[in-house]
């Protein structure tokens, strides 16, 4: 029996590649082709959007004042590298936004995990706080922008907004992950005499890594939302400020260039997290 088991596992481990039949080669080719097709369609959608965005305003089908053009973005960007309405380079604005996002996002993960761990440790605490957490999470946090501005001042209110918008959902997600750990895994650790701290460190936290990564993904987006909304109100630096300013003075070039940089920043964050996920999940 053990020999059979070993053979099966060895087979699975070394992969199917050993004896490549023509059918399998065919299947691989078809797989590759469908992968390429998906990529091609994705690029085509992007291209069509860009072309429409360029052509419609040029043909005066939509008012170019409202939309700007994709071709205007690069020149605007180059121009804004030197100076913007606040005299800082657009890169300084972008850096300010990214810094605030990273701070909000890291704080949300660290504080959120700590709160979730505390709720797990003291079940009574969870039972008391549960309704408050749910309501706090359901609140439209953006309504607090003016309050934060008054309480925390221009810079801190941005960090505060970024944290507030992602903290509660982080706590609820991670606590949910902790709750989802198979109680039998905990029982197993208990049969060896594990203390509560050992259960947290050896079972609950490592078992919640997929949840932590899911929370990371949600937070990356939410923190950015928090920062931009915060900047709308209170900043004189940052992409949120530029968007707000550009809108007010009807310079869509500024708005669209800033939004494009935001899109690139979001994509990079997403890529970073995907890379982290792949690195962590290779062990699972």
């Amino acid at each position, binding site marked *: 029996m053990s020999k059979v088991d070993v053979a099966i596992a060895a087979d699975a481990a070394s992969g199917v590649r050993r004896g490549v039949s023509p059918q399998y080669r065919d299947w691989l080719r078809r797989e590759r082709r469908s992968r390429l097709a998906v990529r091609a369609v994705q690029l085509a959608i992007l291209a069509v959007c860009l072309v429409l965005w360029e052509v419609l305003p040029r043909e005066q089908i939509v008012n170019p004042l409202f939309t700007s053009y994709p071709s205007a973005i690069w020149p605007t960007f180059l121009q804004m590298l030197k100076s913007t309405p606040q005299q800082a380079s657009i890169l300084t604005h972008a850096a300010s936004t990214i810094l605030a996002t990273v701070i909000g996002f890291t704080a949300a993960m660290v504080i959120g995990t700590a709160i979730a761990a505390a709720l797990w440790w003291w079940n009574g605490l969870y039972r008391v706080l549960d309704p408050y957490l749910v309501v706090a999470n359901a609140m439209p946090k953006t309504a607090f922008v003016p309050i934060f501005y008054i309480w925390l001042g221009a810079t801190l209110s941005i960090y505060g907004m970024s944290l507030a918008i992602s903290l509660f959902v982080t706590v609820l997600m991670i606590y949910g992950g902790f709750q989802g750990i198979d109680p039998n895994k905990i029982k197993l650790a208990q049969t060896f*005499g*594990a203390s509560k701290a050992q259960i947290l460190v050896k079972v609950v936290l490592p078992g919640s890594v997929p949840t932590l990564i899911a929370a990371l993904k949600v937070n990356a987006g939410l923190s950015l939302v928090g920062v931009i909304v915060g900047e709308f109100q209170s900043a004189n630096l940052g992409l949120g400020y530029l968007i707000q300013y550009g809108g007010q003075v009807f310079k869509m070039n500024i708005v669209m260039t800033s939004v494009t940089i935001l899109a690139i920043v979001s994509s990079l964050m997403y890529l970073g997290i995907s890379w982290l996920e792949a690195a962590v999940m290779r*062990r699972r």
Partner: protein
Amino acid sequence: MPASAAEAARSSAVELRDVGLRYFGRDGETEALKNVSLTFAPGEFAAIIGPSGCGKSTLLSLISGVIAPTEGSVLIDGRPVQGPSRKVGYMLQQDYLFEWRTILENAVLGAEIQGLPMAQARERAIQLLTRYGLGQFLHHLPRQLSGGMRQRAALARTLCTEPDIVLLDEPFSALDSQTRLALADEIGEILKRAAKTVILVTHDIGEAISMAERVIVMSRRPGQVKSNHPIRLAAGNERLTPLTARNAPEFNDYFRTLWQELDINVQG
């Protein structure tokens, strides 16, 4: 026999004295076990069978010290149980290997939690895993192994802390029937050779007869000990394995007796 009481206390690995357990819930209390008194001698291989929900798994949790009885006391080597003890190893219904740890890292989990010297624990784990045919898979992840291999890794994890008493809670129930028979054979042999005290909980009458020296039948909830059946199978000149035991002439008689004892009614 004047010294018998002290003698019995010393020579019993596990003793349950009038153990009762009740679970409390908002809709009332449930009596899971009632007046259970049992003794297990060192080196004995005993099986507990009973209808589902009769508290047989709860019994193991009590012996392991993970939960405490509401009445009576549990003793290991004559001393009351006050929480999980290093003398007891517990194998649960499934392997519950941690998917983020390699097989070797899983096998040393108990030693790690108990703060045993890790170098020796690793060596012991490697020895056990190699003996169970997992030598090539020390650094594999659990998902890369078959169910039977995973359960053997779980056995290595249990034995790595060198317990004297091993509790098996339907350890084969999650496996397919061939693997189940073969593995019962294997694990039974391993534990008998290591002279561990073994308490096996199962709902499989055949498994109980073929592996154990004594079968204890429990009644429906609240679980009570209904009867004790020492099992003697004509061994001929070789020792019977759980697989060959099924061919022994007495096997069917025991099976019939235990089936009647269990008094299983299938209700539509």
